[in-house]
Each structure stands twice: as structure tokens, then as C-alpha cells.
């Protein structure tokens, strides 16, 4: 463009060029038909919106604050500052709380942090924060406001999604023969089978290669099978194992269902980008049925590792037993246990339970009762303590002080009736330890407690286990390779007050693990690991051994949910003999199943029984009439199985014989035989079939006396 083409209306400087300082840009007119490469707003051309950092990445908006008049303004500011000051550094003048014309705040505030990471953490941690009942924080990024702004003012009801009938996830419970399912994982395969005691082999239900990327798990009531993948968790169920839900969680490593099966926790650790930083832990909570993410906990690994733990031990959050009063889960922090409640996912009473130096905690499997252990404090001035805390009231049900404790282990009975603590105490010299048990009775008023010490209290306690439904427990104790096993009951019929009583001790058993039948009464004394897989099936009612067995190198023992069958498995920790054996409860081997690279065996849990206790007792009483039908069914299946097998064998035999006959007809044909004879006679001219060449023929002269007749010699004279 030459100077002469410059529009005449532009102010010019002395040198004849345009004096841009005097030009009002708005007066400029583009030459017609030439946009000079500048897109005009008027032309309505959609240009892709370039997302840029608005510079407000460090600002968050906190909504649902109380609306306060001037008088309380400062106080509210202090509260908000305090909340956010714990998470990050709030900039100077970084808190802005707009007021209305009447001087009352509008119920929201802007908080500015020093960096976007802090802002993100603040949103993560305080969204849903309960200031009080009426004021639950809604926290969002300032940058997100344009997004929220785009929400139409007019409410439009969402289109109802067409109803899709889902498969019945409890269909496996409807098996007319009352069989149980199990899942196995080996190599790249995951398979679900029926355990069929009559057919004596697993009957396949469903199988799939590469179903999971790390492991599988049944939900606690058996409705779903969870598979774990790099992107998250998927749930499968129903007769065809269709996918029911998926939960996105990148790099998920662990999952944990709530006992009521309504919630799922998933956890993962992520290695830091550079070595100086800590690994990050992410724990997400999901609603199983809707698939919604309810809450996410994130932070450096040090926030999740507490007490004596060296690394992160999963589960970080432990679920309380299923109950009507709510779904609680808790996590141990420094000097506190934080209890949350689902589905609101908030801290109960907004406060953690303060427990100085808390080292371990456990939930009752049946009630929202928490047991906690605090070691000695202040160099022994303050004794160690075991406490039972009831939720949601946070009332201490019972506590017990203990002296010179070196360590404890807590054992809840399955139905929450009893609670035992194994206490290892230091002797006076502090050089050795001895063990004892503190036993709590939860169902009796005031939760009475008593102490049990074994006759020889210096003996090492190898294992302890409560009878799942009952009043008994078993202890393996002893120092040698063949320890003793003792059984105790919590009910003493002979005394007015219930006292723990020894039932009996069996001596010199190769056992280091105890596995009670889920129905009680029967226990498997197992010698795993160093004991190479020895098993004893023991009836505690009669105090007699029903069977002894061996599954060499077995690593795992699992009872089926009905207590009818037990499996012992050798998993891939050993190279050889991978697979599992299925036994009846009384120790009869049903079948073996060998699989290379065997990883997991999981019985499918059953849904809780819908029968009332009285009904169950009635069935037990008339068991004979009920079992008759099933016995007949079993018998007929067994017979069918036998004849089926026989037919199959016959078929295989016939096929083989036909093949062999075809081949033999050629081998036995004359020309073939001649050929063989020719080959053989080249070297051994006397050769004949059947090796007759070696038979040496000898002639034997036989003198036979046919008859002896006496003849008188006639004398001739």
C-alpha cells in the first residue's frame, strides 16, 4: 500500500506519514471487500474458542455460607480464613465476601490462593464441608462459572431414559440344587463354575480371557463380580455376567465393598513425577447402583500412613459392619480416628475421634462399634488402652487399661457377640513376652470382660479364631513344630454367670492356621507354608477328628458359604502342582483341578438368609424330610453321570479300535508281512514271525513199553 492510498481522513504527521497517536481506532474503515486477515465480529463466523488461562485459576468460589449482617462479618471472615488457611496460603486480601445493599452478605465468598494446586486441594477437601446443618459448602473454581452460567434458567425436565431391564444378579441363588458358585483365576483366564459334588467336577458357568488386569473380587453379598482394570473397576453380574457398572479410577490397585454392598471404595497410589516429592494416594468412594462418585480423598502418602505402619496398608478406610444405623467407614490418623458416614460422606459430627497415639482399630463385623488400641504414653506413665466406641453416638461402651504391653491383636467374632484381644506383655525383666487374652461380651449388659491366660502362658500363640456362629474359639499354642490346639467356650452352663471354659486340648498337631466352617461346629486345622499342606478336619461338638488329609504345598483354604465344602489351593507362589482340591466338610476329597499359574479361588458369597431363626430351627429339626428330596435328586444325577461317562468311554474306545483296525489291516496284509520277512531274512535267513528262529528243535527218542505179557517159554526138547 503506497502513501497515496492512505485514506485522506487520517491525521498525518509532519513527515506525511499517519500519526497513529492521533488515530481513533474506531474511526478506521476497512477497505471494502478486504478484511486484511482480521475476522470481523459481525460476520458471525464461528472461530474456535481458544481456551486460555484466565488468571483466575487460583480463585475458588465458596457458596452456601451463612448470610450475616455487618456485626458478624468479621467473625465469618475469620472462620473462612481459618478453614482455608489449613489447606493453603490465602493471599493477602484474597478473601472477598460480597454484601447486598442492606449490608448483609450474599452467602458466598471468593478465596484466592497462591497457586492453582492449593485451590484444587481446597475444592477437593471442603466441597461438602458441613459448617453446620443448614450450611454445607458448595465449592467450585472461579473459572467454572462461565460453565455454570451457561445453564439455562428455565428448568427443563430431563428426558426419562427408557427402562432397561437388568439381569437378576441374585439368579445364582435360585439354583434348584442349591449348588454354589466359585470364581477362579489362572494364566490369563477368569472362570466362574458351579461346584457340583455329584458330578465331581466344576461345571462351567462363564469364562473369559483377560477379564481383569489384576484381580477379581465378589461383592460381599455375591451379587457382583468386580474386575480391576487400569482405567477403573467394573462390576459384572446376572446369569450371563453382563456388565452392570463401571467406576473410573485411573491406576486403581485396591477395592473394598461396604458390607451392605451399596458402596465401593477404590484406592491407588501414584508415583511422584520427581523423586523428591511423595507418592500420591487417591481413594474414591462410589455408589454401586448409580455409579456416582461420592467422594474422593487425595493426598501425599504420609497423610495415609500412620502409627507403626511402614508402608501403606490397604484398606486405608475400613467399613463398619452392616447395620441399620448407617454405613460408617473410618480411617486412622495421627492421634485420631476419623469416622465418615455414607452416603453423605461427611465426618460424623464433623469431628474425628481424638485418641492419643492410636495404633490400631477394628470394626465389629455386625454393629457400628469400633475397637481401638492406644499404646502406653508418656514413657509408661499412661497405660495402654483398649476401648470400644459405639457409633454414631461416639459413646465408649467399654475400655480397659493394660500395663507393660508390647503388642495387641484384635479379633471380633463374626456376629459381633464377642471380642477378643490377644495381649503380649513384657515380663518384669522386659526381656521376653507372654500372652493372654481379654475377652469382651458385647451382648450382655455393661459388656462384661474377663481375662484368659493359657495354662503355660509363656507359650507362643500361633493362631486364634472365633467360631463364626457360636460361642467357641480355638487357639493354636506351642513353640515346637507340633503345637497344641485348645478349644474354649464362652458359655458355662454350670455357673450362674457366664465364664470362659476350656472344652479340651488336642496335642501335637501339625497346624498353624485355623479355618472354622462358616456354620461353626467343624474346623479345619491346617498346616500351611512350612508344614507343607497338612489338614485335619475336626468336629468340635464331638471333639473328634473326622479326617486327616494332605494337599501338598497348599497355600490357601476357603470354606464355601454354606459350610458344606472346603477348597485347598496351591497358588502361583509355588511353581509346581498349581490348582485346587475340593473336599467335603468331613474331609472326603471330591475332586482335584489342576491349573498352571493359578492365582485365585473365590467362593461366591450368598445373600443373607431370609428365613427367621425359628424357621431355620424348624427346618433343622425336620431335616430328614427335606433332605430326602435332594438325596433322590443327587442319586439320579450320579447315575446319569455314571452312564454318561460309560457311554463316553465306549465311544472313545470304539473310535480308537476303528482307527487301529484300519491301520492294522495294512500292517497285517500279506504284502507288508512279506516285506518285513524280506527285510529280516536279508540278515537272518532263518527268521520267522514270532521269533521262532530261536526255538531249538531236538529229536528225542522215546522208548515206549506198550504192554508186558508173560509168555511161558515152551521148552523144546
Amino acid at each position, binding site marked *: 500500500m503506497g502513501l497515496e492510498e492512505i485514506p485522506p481522513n487520517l491525521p498525518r504527521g509532519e513527515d506525511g506519514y499517519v500519526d497513529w497517536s492521533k488515530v481513533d481506532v474506531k474511526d478506521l474503515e476497512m477497505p471494502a471487500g478486504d478484511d486484511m486477515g482480521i475476522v470481523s465480529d459481525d460476520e458471525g463466523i464461528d472461530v474456535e474458542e481458544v481456551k486460555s488461562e484466565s488468571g483466575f485459576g487460583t480463585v475458588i468460589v465458596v457458596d452456601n455460607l451463612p448470610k450475616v449482617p455487618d456485626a458478624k462479618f468479621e467473625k465469618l471472615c475469620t472462620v473462612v480464613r481459618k478453614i482455608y488457611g489449613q489447606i493453603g496460603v490465602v493471599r493477602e486480601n484474597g478473601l472477598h465476601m460480597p454484601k447486598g445493599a442492606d449490608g448483609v452478605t450474599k452467602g458466598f465468598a471468593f478465596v484466592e490462593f497462591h497457586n492453582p494446586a492449593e485451590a484444587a486441594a481446597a475444592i477437593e477437601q471442603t466441597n461438602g464441608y458441613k459448617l453446620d446443618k443448614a450450611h454445607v459448602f458448595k465449592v467450585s473454581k472461579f473459572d467454572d462459572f462461565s460453565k455454570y452460567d451457561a445453564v439455562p434458567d428455565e428448568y427443563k425436565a430431563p428426558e426419562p431414559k427408557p427402562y432397561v431391564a437388568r439381569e437378576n444378579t441374585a439368579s445364582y441363588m435360585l439354583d434348584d440344587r442349591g449348588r454354589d458358585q466359585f470364581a477362579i483365576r489362572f494364566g490369563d483366564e477368569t472362570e466362574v463354575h458351579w461346584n457340583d459334588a455329584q458330578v465331581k467336577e466344576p461345571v462351567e458357568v462363564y469364562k473369559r480371557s483377560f477379564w481383569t488386569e489384576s484381580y477379581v473380587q465378589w461383592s460381599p453379598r455375591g451379587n457382583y463380580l468386580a474386575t480391576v482394570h487400569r482405567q477403573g473397576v467394573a462390576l459384572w453380574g446376572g446369569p450371563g455376567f453382563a456388565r452392570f457398572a463401571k467406576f473410573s479410577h485411573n491406576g486403581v490397585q485396591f477395592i473394598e465393598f461396604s458390607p451392605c454392598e451399596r458402596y465401593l471404595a477404590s484406592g491407588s497410589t501414584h508415583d511422584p513425577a520427581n523423586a523428591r516429592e511423595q507418592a500420591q494416594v487417591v481413594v474414591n468412594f462410589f455408589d454401586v447402583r448409580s455409579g456416582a462418585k461420592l467422594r474422593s480423598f487425595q493426598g501425599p502418602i504420609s497423610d495415609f500412613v500412620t502409627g507403626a505402619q511402614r508402608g501403606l496398608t490397604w484398606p486405608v478406610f475400613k467399613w463398619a459392619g452392616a447395620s441399620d444405623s448407617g454405613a460408617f467407614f473410618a480411617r486412622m490418623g495421627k492421634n485420631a480416628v476419623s469416622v465418615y458416614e455414607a452416603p453423605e460422606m461427611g465426618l460424623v459430627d464433623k469431628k474425628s475421634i481424638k485418641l492419643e497415639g492410636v495404633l490400631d482399630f477394628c470394626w465389629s463385623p455386625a454393629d457400628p462399634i469400633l475397637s481401638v488400641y492406644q499404646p502406653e504414653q508418656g514413657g509408661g506413665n499412661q497405660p495402654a488402652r483398649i476401648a470400644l466406641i459405639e457409633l454414631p453416638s461416639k459413646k465408649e461402651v467399654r475400655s480397659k487399661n493394660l500395663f507393660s504391653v508390647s503388642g495387641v491383636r484384635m479379633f471380633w467374632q463374626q456376629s459381633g457377640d464377642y471380642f477378643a484381644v490377644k495381649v503380649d506383655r513384657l515380663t518384669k525383666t522386659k526381656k521376653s513376652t507372654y500372652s493372654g487374652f481379654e475377652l469382651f461380651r458385647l451382648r450382655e449388659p455393661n459388656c462384661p470382660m474377663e481375662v484368659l491366660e493359657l495354662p503355660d502362658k509363656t507359650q507362643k500363640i500361633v493362631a486364634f479364631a472365633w467360631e463364626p456362629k457360636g460361642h467357641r474359639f480355638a487357639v493354636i499354642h506351642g513353640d515346637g513344630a507340633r503345637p497344641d490346639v485348645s478349644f474354649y467356650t464362652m458359655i458355662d452352663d454350670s455357673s450362674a454367670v457366664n465364664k470362659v471354659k476350656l472344652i479340651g486340648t488336642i496335642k501335637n498337631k501339625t497346624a498353624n492356621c485355623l479355618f472354622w466352617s462358616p456354620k461353626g461346629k467343624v474346623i479345619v486345622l491346617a498346616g500351611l507354608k512350612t508344614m*507343607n499342606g497338612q489338614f485335619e478336619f475336626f468336629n468340635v461338638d464331638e471333639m473328634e477328628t473326622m479326617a486327616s488329609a494332605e494337599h*501338598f*504345598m497348599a497355600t490357601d483354604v476357603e470354606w464355601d458359604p454354606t459350610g458344606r465344602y472346603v477348597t485347598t489351593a496351591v497358588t502361583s507362589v*509355588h*511353581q*509346581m*502342582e498349581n490348582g485346587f482340591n475340593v473336599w467335603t466338610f468331613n474331609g472326603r476329597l471330591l475332586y482335584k483341578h*489342576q491349573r498352571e499359574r493359578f492365582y485365585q479361588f473365590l467362593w461366591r458369597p450368598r445373600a443373607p438368609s431370609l428365613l427367621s431363626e425359628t424357621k431355620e430351627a424348624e427346618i433343622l429339626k425336620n431335616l430328614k424330610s427335606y433332605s430326602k428330596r435332594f438325596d433322590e435328586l443327587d442319586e439320579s444325577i450320579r447315575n446319569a453321570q455314571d452312564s454318561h461317562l460309560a457311554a463316553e*468311554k465306549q465311544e*472313545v*474306545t470304539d473310535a*480308537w479300535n476303528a*482307527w*487301529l483296525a484300519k*491301520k*492294522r489291516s495294512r*500292517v497285517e496284509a500279506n504284502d*507288508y508281512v512279506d*516285506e*518285513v520277512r524280506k*527285510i*529280516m*531274512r*536279508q*540278515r*537272518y535267513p532263518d*527268521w520267522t514271525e514270532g*521269533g521262532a528262529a*530261536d526255538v531249538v528243535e531236538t529229536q528225542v527218542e522215546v522208548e515206549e513199553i506198550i504192554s508186558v505179557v508173560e509168555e511161558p517159554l515152551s521148552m523144546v526138547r
Partner: protein
Amino acid sequence: MRPILLKGHERCYNKEGDLLFTCAKDHHPTLWYSDDGERVGTYIGHNGAVWTCDVTEDSKTLVTGSADTTCKMWDTETGTCYFTHQFEQPVRAVALSKGDQHMVISSDPFMGVPAALHIVDVAANREEQTNEIKISMSGPEGRINRALWGPLNRTILTGGEDGVIRLWDVETGKIVHEANDHKKQIQHLSLSVDKTHFISASLDKTAKLFDSETLECLKTYAADRPVNAAILSPILDHIILGGGQDAMAVTTTHSKAGKFDSKIFYKIYEEEIGGIRGHFGPINALAWHPDGRSFTSGGEDGYVRIHHFDNDYFRIK
């Protein structure tokens, strides 16, 4: 009998089954009475592990193949070596043809020379024995662990390191069939009496039964250990397979964990009948007595065990 520890590797019965020849990593093939296990004598002359042996129909000549790169021919009665075939490579397998006119010798791949099969004549008159190689066949990589003559000496079956079973035409030296059913090295092949089928033993933890003409896989016997040897009963539809965890890993495991027992299977149903324990090292070789009433096993533990079946065995249906 003085216990003689032999690192048993390979054994063979003579035709009548009264004599048992064993050869082992200890350089000295040995002759035993198969019935009572009494040692008759040893054949001294090899300077390396003896991998293989075979005996003529008339039991007069024994041929052995050794890692000392020779294949020796012995007079069984006197124990003298009357001829030595010298090769450049270790000898892995020898087999006499039906009628003892020829024998096939397999040599290991060595110094860049691939594994090969050599066919030589066995002279009727020992003085006329030459080392002239009639045909040499080679091609596939990896050593050949076992070579067997097919029906009417027209073919040779081989199995080896690459896990492929091959059927060679003796006339042309070409490969007629290949079977790729095994996933790992083949350790042993053994023909049925009528030569219509044969069984293979492989480190892929299976033994398989094949049609010896078409190499069609007929049966598979799954064992839970690497299989080093598998044999067919001459009288019943049974097979025995033996093996065990690799010798390298043995010291780290319990003798039971190594799976060193020999297993009897139904040939037709592919089902296990039972097992015979005893060895505390992997079994390297098995041989069934020609009358089918006993069998011998040789293990890495150095023992050769002769097992006589009791009458119950013959009553198994």
C-alpha cells in the same frame, strides 16, 4: 548285589527281554539281567556321556552313541569294541533298522554345523564294517534327541530341541511330514510294537500319541511336570510317562514337589491310572520289558529301577 549308582539316561531291552542295556553320563554302558538286576558287565571305551544305545535282533551287537563324538559297535558277549564311527560332533541318537542292515545316527549341532542324521550300513561280517555314510540329512536347527525307523525302514522319525516331530523319507532325504503339536523340546519318542503309532514326551508337560504315517496327533496326556520319557505297553492299552522338574531346580524342592514318580495312563481315555514313586531325581528314560510285565526307569538321581507289575495291575479294567 553291590549297589551300583548309574546316572541312568537311556536303557534298552534286547528282543527277548532277558538282557537290559543301560547307558549313562558315566561313560560306561552296562549290561544287566533284566529279571533280577544282576550286572553282567560293562563296555569300557567311551570318553564322554553315553546318550543312547541300541541292540541287534540277535543280541550280538550293541551300538552306542556318545558325547565323545563317536558311535561304537560292541560285541555284547565279550564287551570288546569292534568298530568306531568317528564324527565331528557329539552323537545324540542311534537306531538300528528293522533287520539290522542299517543304522541311523544323529549328531548334535556343534561349531556352526547343524544337527544331522547319518545312515550307515551295518555289515553282517564284522571285519567288513566301514564308516561310509550312505546318506546324510540335515536342515532344521536344534539337536535331534531321538530318531526311530518307521515301518519297513522307509522313513525316519525324529524329535528334538525345536519341539517339531519330523518324518523323513530315507530314499530322498526329504521331510515328508512335520507335526508342531508340542510347544517345547521333545525328549523322547517311542513306537508301538506294530509301528502304527508312537508316543512323544516333551518338556511342555505333555506326552502325545501320533499316527506314525501322517503325524496326526491322536491323544494328549497332560502331566503336571516336564515329561522326559513316555512308553507304550506292548500288551495293554496303557502308557507310562516319567519326568520331573528340571535337574537345575531340584535341589531347591522337596522330593515330592519335583514330581519324580512315573505315571501310568490309559492310552485311549487319556486318564491317569496311578503312579510309581521311588526316584528322587527326574526320570530320564523308561523302557517296557517286551513281555509287558515289568518296566525299567532311569533317573537323574543315578538309579535304575526295575519295576515288576503285580497281578493287581493286570486286573485293572
